[in-house]
């Protein structure tokens, strides 16, 4: 069979008996409606869907009965019209044989469709709209695990795609569902591929198909030729070998690229979709029909009429077996999926789900009991057969001896569980069973670690909270115990101030502890809030990187809330903080300016962050771009506002020229900064002048006449700059003058302060002497008169010293 594309090879693989012809003898069957349809809520990888209907509700064919629950989840629709008879646990098609929550529909046999809303103008819609639509139509990957298609395609939006590969290989024995689908729905399939190509815009589109489907290939080629698409969509006919239909194997066959360990095809610019998915996409977009049915192969020696059927999801398997004429006495093992990768079904009541491609009812001859496992003889045939180039023997040792770490090291998770190794094993070791066990044990251990880490975090958080509470209680107890000594201490702190200031100070100090405590608490709260904010932001960026839309929205709202609380706390803090600082900082303006500066810096940072986020969003063409942009403008406005208020506050700070030393210093500093700024401005202006002159010279050199030079506007600019400089220099001289003025008083203050100090010492000395003398008087009453005289003299000295001190303080205050 000729192939338009070069086909490469992959390592290993096996050639089991095909057994495909049995099910292709009859045309596509249409079994009649069963008595009830059982629709499991978890038909796909990820979270279970959330039911929208109640027991007793009437539903129409195609009506949504369950919606997605989180990011990796899917919609579910009623396959026929009828009544919801129950929502309960039923046996589902799962290797465990466990039950799970299902919606049960009792058909009314009328098959009344609900109103269909197709998207015939998909070419004119945005990709996001089409993707959302596909999600609402419940489309999941129909080849294997049932990965929600829109999630896979969303991943493709972020990367440039080299290849869109349509997987029609269908390599597993017995299964012919894809073959039949291509034959029956060729045109639907091709149009589905066109829609997919519109969504992912890959450079190449290749349909990979095994050479045992001659009729399907022919039909496809014809269809492509008729639609004149044979240049855009290529058909690659690959030799029949199991497992060429494995995603990674088919990619290797068609592109000679290997998907690196732990990565997805999308990471190397390739996306793979099953033919069933393509046809389902066509049904959804063009016909408006959600995914409610699929083509499934009924085959096996126990069936009288093996065939492919188009079957409604939720149809019990028993119903299909009866339809195909199952001889239950012959039936040895019932398998969902193929003989290589399928699993045994314990319960015939289990329903068909979105990923059921085959029901194999094998007779004892066809599917004999596996032979007893024997010891590994190290023949190495498994390594020869492994399509993932792993070392099955090593993996067997490690999983057998529970050395999962080593098994992981040997890339156990790259195993696709194709069963080729078990197939060739001469000791009939169920290797895949071991690997599956190993994988689930590792996953379980990982989950346990996550859970225990989480518990540890919670435990530690609780411990920290309890300690904090205990500390707070202790602090409160202490505060209640000795409020009086604190006031005393305040007195001791300010003994040299005169009585009135000391009193005022006392009042201040009494207030201060309360204030301090409140501000401390607020600060702690603020720190906690900020930490939370950081965490949230981290989570948000992570979510954005992985485009988990729902989480992003939630996180965004949380971040906003957190911002609000932080803002509130900061406001409260500023309210509380200034009175606490009064005693420390001479200038309340300074605190305000500082706060404003901080606010401005924060605002600027947030603007920057937003800009970055927008850039990122633009890169990945994310949907939240608009919201980000809308956030940006208010952020910029806020930053500008803050800067303005900062400037005005600084001005105010500069203007409020109280003559205290600290302020004078601040002023001079301000002046110095201004001077510096002015100098820089002058330098810039000078540079501009130079440049302008140079430009003019250059123009002259080029021989342009004066008129042209005038027209260029350079001379005007030159004049402007020169005017500017003179203005700036004027300002500079002014400033330096004020600077020297402002510096002077501070110089004068210093000797004054010295004097005050000296006087204070004198007063203290006099006081000490007086107290000494009074003590002596008590001890020696005979010399009382003498001492009394001395005391009076000292008191006189003290009063003179005190008056002098008061004068000095007055002058200082005046200054």
């Amino acid at each position, binding site marked *: 069979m000729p192939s338009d594309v070069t086909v490469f090879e992959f390592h290993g693989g096996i050639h089991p008996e095909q057994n495909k012809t049995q099910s292709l003898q009859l045309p596509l069957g249409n079994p009649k409606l069963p008595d009830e349809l059982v629709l499991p809520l*978890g038909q796909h990888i990820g979270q279970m869907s959330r039911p929208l209907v109640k027991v007793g509700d009437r539903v129409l064919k195609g009506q949504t009965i369950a919606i997605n629950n989180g990011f990796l989840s899917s919609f579910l629709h009623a396959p026929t019209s009828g009544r919801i008879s129950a929502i309960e646990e039923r046996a*589902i098609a*799962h*290797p*465990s044989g*466990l039950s*799970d929550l299902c919606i049960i529909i009792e058909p009314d046999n009328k098959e009344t469709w609900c109103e269909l809303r197709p998207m015939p103008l998909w070419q004119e819609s945005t990709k996001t709209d089409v993707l959302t639509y596909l999600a609402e139509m419940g489309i999941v990957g129909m080849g294997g695990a049932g990965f929600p298609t829109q999630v896979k395609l969303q991943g493709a939006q972020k990367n440039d795609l080299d290849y869109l590969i349509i997987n029609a290989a269908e390599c597993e024995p017995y299964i012919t569902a894809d073959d039949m689908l291509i034959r029956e729905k060729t045109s639907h399939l091709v149009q589905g591929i066109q829609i997919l190509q519109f969504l992912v815009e890959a450079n190449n589109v290749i349909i990979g198909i095994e050479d045992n489907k001659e009729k399907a290939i022919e039909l496809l080629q014809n269809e492509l030729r008729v639609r004149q698409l044979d240049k855009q969509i290529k058909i690659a006919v690959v030799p029949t070998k199991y497992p060429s239909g494995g995603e990674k194997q088919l990619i290797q066959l068609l592109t000679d690229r290997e998907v690196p360990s732990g990565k997805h095809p999308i990471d190397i610019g390739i996306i793979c979709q099953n033919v069933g998915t393509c046809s389902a996409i066509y049904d959804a977009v063009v016909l408006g029909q959600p995914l409610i049915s699929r083509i499934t192969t009924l085959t096996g020696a126990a069936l009288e009429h093996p065939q492919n059927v188009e079957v409604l999801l939720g149809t019990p398997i028993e119903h299909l077996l009866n339809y195909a004429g199952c001889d239950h006495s012959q039936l040895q093992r019932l398998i969902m999926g193929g003989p290589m990768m399928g699993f045994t079904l314990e319960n015939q009541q289990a329903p068909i789900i979105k990923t059921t491609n085959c029901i194999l009812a094998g007779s*004892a*001859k066809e599917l*004999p*009991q596996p*032979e*007893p*496992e*024997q*010891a590994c003889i190290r023949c190495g045939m498994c390594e020869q057969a492994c399509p993932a180039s792993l070392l099955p023997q090593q993996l067997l040792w490690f*999983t*057998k001896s529970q050395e999962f770490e080593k098994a992981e090291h040997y890339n156990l998770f790259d195993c696709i569980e194709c069963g080729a190794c078990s197939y060739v094993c001469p*000791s009939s*070791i*169920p290797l895949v*069973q*071991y690997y*599956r*066990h190993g*994988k*689930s*044990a590792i*996953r*379980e251990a990982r989950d*346990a*670690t996550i*859970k*225990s*880490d*989480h*518990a*540890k975090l*919670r*435990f530690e*958080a*609780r411990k920290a909270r309890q300690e904090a509470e205990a500390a707070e209680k202790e602090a409160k107890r202490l505060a209640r115990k000795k409020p009086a000594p604190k006031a005393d201490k305040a007195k001791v702190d300010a003994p040299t101030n005169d009585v009135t200031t000391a009193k005022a100070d006392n009042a201040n100090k009494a207030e201060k502890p309360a204030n301090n405590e409140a501000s401390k608490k607020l600060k702690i709260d603020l720190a906690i809030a900020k930490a939370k904010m950081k965490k949230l932001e981290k989570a948000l960026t992570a979510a954005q990187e992985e485009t988990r839309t729902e989480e992003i929205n939630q996180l965004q709202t949380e971040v906003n809330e957190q911002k609000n609380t932080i803002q509130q706390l900061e406001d409260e803090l500023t309210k509380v903080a200034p009175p606490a600082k009064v005693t420390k900082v001479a200038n309340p303006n300074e605190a305000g300016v500082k706060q404003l500066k901080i606010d401005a810096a924060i605002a600027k940072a947030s603007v920057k962050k937003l800009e970055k986020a927008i850039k990122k969003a633009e890169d990945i063409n994310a949907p939240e771009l608009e919201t980000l942009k809308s956030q940006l403008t208010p952020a910029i406005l806020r930053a500008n506002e803050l800067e303005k208020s900062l400037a005005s506050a600084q001005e105010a700070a500069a203007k409020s020229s109280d003559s205290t030393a600290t302020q004078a210093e601040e002023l001079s500093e301000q002046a110095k900064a201004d001077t510096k700024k002015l100098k820089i401005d002058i330098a810039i202006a000078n540079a501009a002048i130079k440049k302008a002159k140079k430009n003019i010279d250059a123009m002259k050199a080029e021989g342009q006449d004066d008129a042209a030079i005038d027209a260029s506007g350079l001379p005007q600019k030159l004049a402007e700059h020169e005017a500017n400089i003179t203005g700036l220099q004027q300002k500079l001289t002014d400033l330096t003058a004020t600077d020297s003025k402002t510096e002077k008083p501070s110089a004068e203050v210093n000797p004054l302060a010295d004097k005050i100090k000296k006087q204070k010492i004198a007063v203290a000395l006099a006081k000490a002497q007086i107290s000494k003398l009074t003590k002596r008087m008590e001890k020696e009453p005979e010399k009382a008169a003498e001492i009394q005289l001395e005391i009076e003299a000292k008191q006189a000295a003290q009063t003179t010293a005190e008056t002098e001190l008061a004068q000095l303080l007055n002058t200082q205050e005046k200054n």
Partner: protein
Amino acid sequence: MTTILIAVGILLVLSLIFGAILGFANVRFHVEGDPIVAQIDAILPQTQCGQCGHPGCRPYAEAIANGEAINHCPPGGQATIQALADLLDVEAIPLDGDHGEETAKRVAVIREDECIGCTKCIQACPVDAILGAAKQMHTVIADECTGCDLCIDPCPVDCIDMVEIGVTTKTWSWDKPVGPMSRPGNLIASDRQPLMEASH
């Protein structure tokens, strides 16, 4: 003589250099705390149940580092004992029954209509997994519950049950195959005859 002196000198210089490097490395790469305690703590199941006689998993980890037996942790069970034995290079011993039996994973469930809202279980829960307020009904956040049993005793009306977490399709895992010696007597080729007949 000079050769010996040169040799001694070179050795002396070398020892000084290496000594300096070692001394520097000791300061530069100094590890705060006891790393082995952290490693042991990471293996313990973090239920914080106190069945080992310590107030939480970390204190038990410290005790193990100081030589306490490794078999006092019922929630971790034999798997934890094995992991600890591997880490500390000691023999894996069976679980000490005095501290409790290994049970399947469980969560606490409050029979809500019987709850009187005393908050005693809330105070007992080491991971804050119980929600409620005074005189209001309490409930357990099942996802956060570690199944430590600590809320059972304080409850004055005995309205808390420990319920085993059953296997769901999400948590189900494949069994390990039984292995080659599972069907003794079937190892000789002739023993397989009936099966071979069936397949031909």
